């Protein structure tokens, strides 16, 4: 069977399930599964927000409420068609989320979470007090969903609509995660330095994910209002928001399937608890909340990935150790040709009197330096000489305290990292920064982020396939180029450290840089691997790239570099051809403490 036919069958089965399942279900379960579906929608957004992008919101129920009240007011009081209710509801929810995201975007993660607690309370209080919304008396007789002459009076039809929405949003979320934007979203979770170095606009992206999660909640709110046909503030309270978060943690934040599993477990068990606990203890109360919270605490302590991995016992794809060690190819493949047009001998980077202080410590003092096309410049010096600080200044991670920097002839000393990346400056890190659970190929493809244009929505609709194929082909080509053609599917974290550095080099090359900054790329490599890296760097030089290299392996540096810059205590103490620098007495003193 062809993959397409297979996929068609799966889709047909899901559609049949959604149509037949509500028709067959007893009345009581129609309501219960309706709630499970609605909760799944909200939880899906939270998986993207919390599990993938590493942000958290304790305010999702407010977004459900905003959309629910919007559609209620429009369809009941203004007799608008359902579709208008949906559009306005999502508009209100999205705009609110966007504004809230704007306010908190630049703060680190827990501020967003804390702020969400407070708007969770504020919106709940507003729903309960605004006269228009009838407070806790609620609004009843909400018109059913209707399109033209068709009206979904029956709850069973609504149930089908809800689960169709679940299926569609699951598919869209899966598509998103399997795309250029999906890879970018993963870097938001604790890997922002990677994101900056490949040109991802992290502030905008984290806001976008936040808005997506809110819109999922908004869709749930819209459906909720027309399913229940009655709304009051209670289901939009802070504790409802926290419930959604608990569902995601119980199901598993790491996977989209965690959403339906968590939602089903919490909604169904809560229903059972409400039946049984008063019978056992003889009193009603917050007992089920107590039990769920205790479960959540245990899960956070023992199984932070949630129940899903425990239930499924998913075997992780792991390459056997010896295969990883032996996997790298031996040859560097030939150059695919110059990456960007380069004028031979043109200045790429110029630093003039750059200084950087950390409090009283001068990490860089008055450093001047230039890198041209077709040139490998090595930056050497004892530990603590300020080499990495200089790298961070060139890549925009740190602003210089004083001095000027020019990139490709234009002033660049106040540009943010991602703009510098967009100009064509790529880097690797001294302490390797990769997404350890993602494959080598995905990690390398991150470097090609800027060559893609497809946004979030088009990715979710799978309109990015042509571009995605091109990006992955580019990533594969760079992987082959550094000798990693056989290790594309291995999780990057499973590679030995030295090879992880080479993955970083491939990721940097995906940027098609004009200037490449390598921070100790040969550390941890074996001799043969070092030779291969040297061959690659020579090839890049021949293609017109400029390379600035920090390295402690002197044999490696001296055989490769056109020019060597020596730093000590934050200052440049020597510069010149390798053999001249090697015989410089000042350099010898810095390295060996003086010639006796």
């Amino acid at each position, binding site marked *: 069977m062809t993959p397409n036919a297979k996929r068609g069958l799966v889709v047909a089965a899901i559609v049949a399930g959604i149509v037949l399942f509500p028709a067959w279900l007893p009345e009581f379960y129609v309501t219960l599964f309706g709630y499970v579906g609605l909760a799944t929608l909200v939880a899906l957004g939270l998986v993207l927000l919390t599990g993938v992008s590493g942000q958290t919101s304790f305010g999702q129920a407010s977004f459900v409420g905003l959309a629910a009240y919007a559609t209620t007011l429009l369809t009941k009081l203004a007799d608008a068609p359902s579709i208008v209710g949906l559009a306005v509801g999502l508009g209100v929810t999205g705009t609110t989320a966007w504004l809230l995201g704007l306010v908190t975007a630049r703060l680190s993660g827990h501020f967003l979470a*804390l702020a969400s607690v407070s708007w969770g309370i504020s919106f709940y209080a507003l729903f309960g007090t605004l006269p228009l919304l009838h407070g806790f008396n609620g609004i009843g007789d909400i018109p059913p969903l209707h399109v033209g002459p068709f009206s979904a009076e029956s709850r069973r039809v609504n149930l089908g609509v809800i689960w169709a929405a679940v299926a569609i949003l699951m598919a869209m979320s899966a598509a998103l995660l399997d795309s250029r934007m999906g890879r970018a979203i993963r870097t938001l979770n604790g890997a922002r330095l990677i994101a900056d170095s490949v040109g991802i606009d992290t502030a905008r992206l984290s806001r976008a994910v936040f808005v997506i999660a809110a819109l999922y909640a908004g869709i749930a709110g819209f459906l909720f209002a027309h399913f229940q046909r009655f709304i009051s503030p209670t289901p939009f309270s802070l504790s409802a928001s926290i419930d959604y978060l608990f569902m995601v943690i119980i199901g598993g934040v790491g996977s989209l399937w965690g959403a339906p599993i968590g939602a089903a477990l919490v909604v169904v068990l809560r229903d059972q608890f409400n039946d049984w606990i008063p019978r056992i203890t003889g009193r009603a109360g917050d007992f089920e909340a107590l039990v769920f919270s205790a479960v959540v605490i245990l899960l*956070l302590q023992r199984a932070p990935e949630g129940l899903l991995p425990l239930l499924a016992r998913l075997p992780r794809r792991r390459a056997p150790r010896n295969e990883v060690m032996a996997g790298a190819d031996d040859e560097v493949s030939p150059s695919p040709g110059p990456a960007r047009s380069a004028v031979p001998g043109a200045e790429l980077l110029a630093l003039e009197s750059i200084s950087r202080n950390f409090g009283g410590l001068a990490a860089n003092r008055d450093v001047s330096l230039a890198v041209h096309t077709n040139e490998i410049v090595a930056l050497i010096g004892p530990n603590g000489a300020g080499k990495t600080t200089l790298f961070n200044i060139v890549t925009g991670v740190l602003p210089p305290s004083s001095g000027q920097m020019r990139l490709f002839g234009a002033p660049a000393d106040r540009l943010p990292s991602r703009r510098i990346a967009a100009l064509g400056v790529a880097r690797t890190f001294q302490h390797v920064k990769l997404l350890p659970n993602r494959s080598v190929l995905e990690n390398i493809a991150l470097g090609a982020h800027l060559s893609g244009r497809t946004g979030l929505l088009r990715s979710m609709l799978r309109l990015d396939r042509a571009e995605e194929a091109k990006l992955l082909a580019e990533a594969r080509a760079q992987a082959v180029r550094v000798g990693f053609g056989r290790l594309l599917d291995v999780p990057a974290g499973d590679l030995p450290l030295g090879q992880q550095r080479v993955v970083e080099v491939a990721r940097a090359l995906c940027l098609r840089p004009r200037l490449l900054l390598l921070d100790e790329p040969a550390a941890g490599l074996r001799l043969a691997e070092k030779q291969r890296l040297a061959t690659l760097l020579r090839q890049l030089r021949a293609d017109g790239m400029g390379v600035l290299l920090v390295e402690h392996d002197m044999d490696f540096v001296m055989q490769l570099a056109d020019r060597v810059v020596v730093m000590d205590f934050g200052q440049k103490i020597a510069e010149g051809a390798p053999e001249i620098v090697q015989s410089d007495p000042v350099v010898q003193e810095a390295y060996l403490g003086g010639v006796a």
Partner: protein
Amino acid sequence: MDLFVFLALLQDGITTGAIYLLLAIGLLIVFSVTRVIFVPQGDLLAFGTLTAGTLQAGHLPGTLWLLDALAAMALVASLFGGRTAALRGVLIWGVYPLAVTAAALFLAPRQMPAISILLALAIVTPMGPLIWRFAFRPIADAPVLALLILAMALHFVLIGLGLVFFGPEEATAPALTDASFDLGVLNVSGQSLAVLVCCAALVIGLRWFFSATIHGKVLRAAASDRLGARLMGIDAGASGALAFGLASFIAALAGVLIGAVTPLSYDAGFDIGLKGFVAAIMGGLISYPMAAAGALLVGVLESLGSFWASAYREVIVFTLLIPILVWLSLRSGSPEDRA
């Protein structure tokens, strides 16, 4: 509004502001040492009020049995940790709870306010280190967000227990003093003054603790560089327990103070704790003086808000966060990598 009403509201606002300040300090201590955002602090506050109220009514509070149960678990756990740990465990988790239980059994029927208050402090304060020991320490290195979610879950556990222990009714803590003074048009209640005096004493005491004692310096070291402190031989578990202990003591104290002014029910602590949060966030979760200013501002705004637009009181307080977050976000440079 005339001057009299305004002054009365102001007095109210400053009193509750002082309580928020105490909670903000507790949050800041715990957050800076352990990175835990201690949501359940507000619930411990309610425990403080309700425990003191129950004792004053001549009954034994459920929190006492909770203390005994948790302490017994900690005692058993400490027996497996070598001789010194076992000895310490027996002293702290064996002798102490026994002494408190005996004192409560013996003294509760006498219904003396000062004794009820002291016993409530003695019962609720150890909850902090016990919570740290069993809930947070097993995942002390997890991301801030995971710790925050755990704190939220713990909040629900505590209010669930609160309902079991105390039922749904509100209760008051015994007042420290019934005195009141007339200052011109304004009647100043002695309890308000007592709140302010306790608050000031606590702030001064903490200042001394952090600058002059070895334990205080250990906490400061752990707060400024956790890894560095650990490398210098500072026990992260012990400094966490100390931080949680301070926070729960502060919560219990705040509970017996505010509980004499306002009756509280088992689930009332969360809102109060959140307002302490708002104050702490104003200090950026770092600065104590800013948090103090924030706490007083929250208290006064809430008090004035309840007069002008009582239905929107909560909305006003929590919406206040938005401009503060805007300001914080403009002030902070590039977003840090999330640890």
